[in-house]
């Protein structure tokens, strides 16, 4: 199996500027508004800013949860939503442990990060990058990043409206 890619960010480097969030909503929905973006940026004091993306899980619970088989994985390993099949049931939103798939406020169909890299290119501080599970484990050998994410998971993934 090809190694699954996802975008990941360092909350101690991210400054919370929202550029990634805005680039995403403008690119895909032609508006500015965090609820229209597939990226979220969550500030947690003291001093942390988490840029949050789809983690491209191997067992992708969103895929399994969809009652309409609207979510599938491409040959390149990207999990995508078929707009024709999506009825906006919201089952995927409930299933995702990362609150990384949500319903578009206008179309009410599911939207999620597809690792296009538009935000990665524009992040002014290189706080985000495209990676894989193995690569990330290597980079984060001391567990600094994973422990920051774990420590704050309740607040990061609470499914309150964005």
């Amino acid at each position, binding site marked *: 199996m090809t190694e699954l890619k996802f975008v990941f960010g360092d909350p101690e480097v991210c400054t919370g500027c929202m*550029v990634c969030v805005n680039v995403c909503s403008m690119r895909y929905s032609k508006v500015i*508004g*965090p609820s229209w973006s597939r990226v979220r940026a969550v500030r947690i004091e003291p001093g942390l800013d988490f840029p949050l993306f789809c983690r491209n899980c191997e067992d992708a619970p969103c895929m399994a949860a969809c009652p309409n088989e609207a979510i599938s994985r491409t040959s390149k390993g990207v999990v995508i939503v078929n707009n024709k099949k999506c009825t906006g049931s919201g089952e995927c939103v409930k299933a995702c442990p990362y609150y990384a798939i949500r319903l578009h406020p206008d179309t009410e169909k599911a939207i999620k990060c597809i690792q296009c890299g538009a935000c990665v290119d524009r992040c002014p501080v290189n706080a985000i990058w495209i990676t894989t599970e193995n690569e990330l484990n290597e980079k984060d050998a001391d567990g600094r990043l994973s422990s920051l994410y774990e420590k704050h998971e309740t607040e990061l993934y609470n499914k309150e409206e964005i």
Partner: protein
Amino acid sequence: MKGIGGNNLWIDLTKGEIEKRPVEEEMVNEYLLGAGYLSRVLYDNIPVGIDPLSPKNVLGIATGLLTGSMFPQASRHVVAALSPLTDVWGESHAAGFWGPELKFAGYDAIIFTGASSDPVYLYIQNDTVELLDASDIWGTSVFETDDWIREKHSKRARVLSIGQAGENKVRFAAVMNDRDRASARSGLGAVMGSKGLKAISVRGTGKLEVADPKDYLNQMDIFYERMLANPFTKERAKYGTTNLVELMNHIGRLPSYNMRQGVFEGFEKISGHTITEKHLVKPRSDWSCLQRCGRYTRVKEGPYKYIGGSPEFESQSSLGSRCGNDNLESVLFSHHLANMYGMDTISLGATISWAMEAWDEGLLTSEDTDGIDLAWGNHETVVKLTEMIALREGFGDILAEGSVRAAERIGRGTEKFVMTVKKQEIAGQEPRAQKSMGLAAVTAARGADHLYAFPVLDEAGFDKEIKERFGEQYLPEMADRLNPKYKGIMVKECEDFMVMVESVGLCKYGTQIPPEFYYDDVAQALRIHNGLDLTSEELQTIGERIVNLNRLFNVARGVTRSDDQLPDRLTKEGAPKGPSPGQVVELDQMLDEYYEQRGWNLENGFPTMDTLKRLGLEKEGKAVIK
């Protein structure tokens, strides 16, 4: 119009009534939004002769046309009212996320009239707008208020509030947002406190539609690239504004020992390099900010332990060199406390340093100060007084009035050491080492101020930009910070541009320093974001109109040329030390040039009827200038 919230909120706090009014587009064409919008609304609604802390004052908070856009640094909002510190035009600005959030909730500005008899906070969640009981948070700090509101309503709420200083009507209390962002100057936190308004909680889940969605990202990419390629951006990201301490000390422009001199022997200890090395956690950005001058810092242990957002050059200078204080941890901690209580660090440090000079001169003794030792550099005193001023305890109660009123109260010749213009304390620019800053301090509508004009083009070798913005004929004099020549021309131009920038919600970083974006860039952004077709010339005229209306606001309240003055120390006593010894501010010469350039009367400093006519302010002028 595209790219804005679309509605303004008018809140009558006396009656508890809330009204939504659509943004008046005709007014946008004449005043834009933000500072310009408030200049007009408050001009029309604040009666002459009222007490700024009475219910008759009107408090406005407005975002700019580009606030919440993708333009670099488009994060800002403006707060304005009649100032309880200066008794004239009061205005202050901050970055953050609160302004964009207000837009996403569907609003561009909020105007508060009257006063509530019981403490309230305004709760906004998209269409839901309510005044709620604030008795549980009255008496708490800015941080506690932020925590309480976000715990109660939503972790994602953005909060603007006052701390104890605003409640206690400290005359230089700030309006705070997003915990550590401050609309600090002019004492507007006291106005909010006088109205019984503790906070505004905003949650907006809407969107901004833009005028040119197709080309928007391409255009923004060009602005991003220019901003990131500018060498200042890298420097800003690394030091924020903190390394201005060393740069300003080098040119003798770092106010020290009140404002006796512009160099400080302990500068290295409070410098940007030291902060970056020992205390920086990370740089922080506000909405769409590529400059990231915001600092997040900590002191790990000891009496001054904290973690939070701070500092900024102004605080290092006011709480540090100005008080002769080279204890960096105390400077950082005192700034942290000022954020927590909600106070302007400039007036805070300047007022303490006034008292320290009076003490040094033997005019204040421990009988006046409840036994507190006010010797230069006593860092414990700086920290203690920060708290006592916010809570109006003991001697702090006198200092909470600001240095002018405190000196009136004490008397004994202590007025001589008050470093203010129109009762507001002069910021961290020793003007004998940069003449334009001396002029800017006296012409600013809100009293002593470096930001109304922010004339920095003579500060750091911007000859190219001077040539582009003014013309080659003004070089080399205009670029020479010690030469008073052409500074009237420069300050006038900078004021027009800066008030325009504050009316669109952009930052002075990126527009003035570095001078990367100018009128044509703003015009372009207004086109693609708002669909507004305004030329550079029209934008400049709007800036001029706002400055003139601010002036009329002040003229109506008795301001004349005789109020556009600096303390004698700066115009008569030569700088005693440093690289510019013997320099004074040649104020009269610069002021003549400035008035002439503005089309104002040289004798009294009033706008002439010709000028007002050209700007469409004839009616207002006739009512004020008899």
